[in-house]
C-alpha cells in the first residue's frame, strides 16, 4: 500500500516517518503524477494560505480535488483540515470544500496559547495530541461523524473516506490515529 503526503509546504516529513513506522510505503506529493497509484493521501500541517497558493500556482489543486472527489481517502491535520473544509468562518476563501464542516482558523489564539493535551477518540481512548495555533470545528454537517473530542469540542472527524484532525498526531510517538487512517484506506 502506497500513501502520499502532500509536501508543498509544512510538516510532511513527520507524517512520512509515522507511516513508514507502520510499515507502509510513504511518498511526498509535489506534482500531479505523484497522485497516481495512491491508496490514500495525508494533508499535513503548515500554513493553509501558503499551501493553497502553492497548490494552485503549481497546477496541483485541480488534480488533487479530482482525486479526492473520485474517492481517494484523505487525512488532513490542522492546515490540512482547513484545506478540506467546506467553510472557514473567519476567512474569505475556502479551498477543497470536501469535508462538510465549518472551521475557524487560529481558534486557540497565538503561539503562546498552543498546547499539548489528550484527545478522547472512539475505540482508542486517550490519544496524546499537540495543538498548534489550532483551528476549531464550529459546525459539523450531516454525514460527518465526530470520532474524537477535546474539551467536549470535536477534534477528529470523519466523512466517508475523509478524516480531519484539528491537532497534530504526527508530533507524538503515538501512531494509533495514523493506523485508524490506514484502516480507512484498506477498506476503500
Amino acid at each position: 500500500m502506497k500513501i502520499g503526503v502532500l509536501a508543498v509546504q509544512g510538516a510532511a516529513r513527520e507524517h512520512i516517518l509515522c507511516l513508514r513506522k507502520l510499515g507502509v510505503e510513504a511518498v511526498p506529493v509535489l506534482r500531479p503524477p505523484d497522485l497516481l497509484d495512491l491508496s490514500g493521501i495525508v494533508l499535513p500541517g503548515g500554513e493553509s494560505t501558503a499551501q493553497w497558493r502553492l497548490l494552485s500556482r503549481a497546477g496541483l489543486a485541480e488534480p488533487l480535488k479530482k482525486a479526492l472527489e473520485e474517492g481517494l481517502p484523505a487525512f488532513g491535520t490542522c492546515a490540512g483540515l482547513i484545506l478540506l473544509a467546506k467553510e472557514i468562518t473567519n476567512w474569505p476563501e475556502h479551498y477543497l470544500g470536501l469535508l462538510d464542516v465549518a472551521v475557524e482558523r487560529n481558534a486557540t489564539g497565538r503561539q503562546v496559547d498552543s498546547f499539548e493535551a489528550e484527545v478522547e477518540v472512539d475505540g482508542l481512548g486517550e490519544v496524546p495530541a499537540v495543538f498548534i495555533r489550532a483551528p476549531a470545528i464550529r459546525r459539523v454537517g450531516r454525514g460527518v461523524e465526530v470520532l474524537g473530542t477535546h474539551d467536549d469540542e470535536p477534534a477528529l472527524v470523519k466523512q466517508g473516506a475523509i478524516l480531519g484532525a484539528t491537532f497534530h498526531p504526527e508530533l507524538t510517538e503515538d501512531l494509533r490515529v495514523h493506523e485508524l487512517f490506514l484502516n480507512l484506506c484498506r477498506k476503500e
Partner: protein
Amino acid sequence: MQKGTYRVKTGFAEMFKGGVIMDVTTPEQAQIAEEAGAVAVMALERVPADIRAQGGVARMADPKKIKEIMRAVSIPVMAKCRIGHIAEARILEALGVDFIDESEVLTPADPFHHIDKWQFKVPFVCGCRDLGEACRRLAEGAAMLRTKGEAGTGNVVEAVRHMRILNDQIRRLKEMSRAELVTYAKEIGAPVEILEMIQELGRLPVVNFAAGGIATPADAALMRMLGADGVFVGSGIFKSENPEKRARAIVLACTYYDDPELLAKVSEDLGEAMPGVEIEKIPEHSLMQYR
C-alpha cells in the same frame, strides 16, 4: 493541558518547513507577503539594508507597529529582539508575537550572554555560522535555527558559507567515535549531549532555515539544495522593483527548488533585484554575523 512545552515550540517550527519568512515594515507589506504565500512575516521598523545604511543602534520595533502587523494578517508574526535583551523579549512575548528572533541584525545588548530561552513560553529562533554556535543556541533553548549569512547585503555568499560549514561539520560528526566527539565538543564549544543527539539523528534536532543575503528565486533554491528547510528573505523583497512578483516567485522556488524549468519560468522578468554589496567592501566591524 500544557502550554509552552519544547514539543509545542519545535513542533510549530516544523510547520514552517518548505516555506519563506519575509521581513515587512508595514501592514500593507505584510498583506502582500501573505498573499504571495509567505508562511510567516518578520515585523520590523527597518529592513536590514536600511539598518546597515543608516547605522546607529538598532532596537526592537515599536510595539504599535508590531500590533498593526499582527492585526493585518492571519499567518504567524515574528519579531526581533537584541541579543541578550531579556526585557525586549518579555515585551514581545506579552504582545503575543508567535516567534522571537534573537537577532544579530539588531545591536547586541549583552556582551556576555544570549537569552535563557527555556524561561519563555514563546519559541525563539537564533542565528548560527557553524555547529558550535548552533549547539550553544540549542542549549539555551532555541526551538529553531537559521544560518546567519550577512543580512542586508543581497549577497548570498555568506549564507552559503555558513550552510556549507554546518553540513560539513555534521557529516564529520556522524563518523566520530565517542572519544573524538568529546574532543570535538571542546574544540567547537558545544555541549557533549547535544552533539550526541545530532550524531544519532544525523541532522540538527530542530528546523534550520537559511538567512542573510537571499535576493532571488535562484538564491532561495540554492539554499534549499544545500539542505535548508526554508528561507528568510529580509531586504530582498521590499527593496526590489516588483515586490509582489518577486515574493511569489521566491515562494514557488523554495518548494520546487529541484525543477530548473520552473525556476527559469519564475525568475523571468522580475524587475531589478535589490542592489547588492560585496562582503569584502564591508569593514569587518560592520559585519553582523560576528555578533
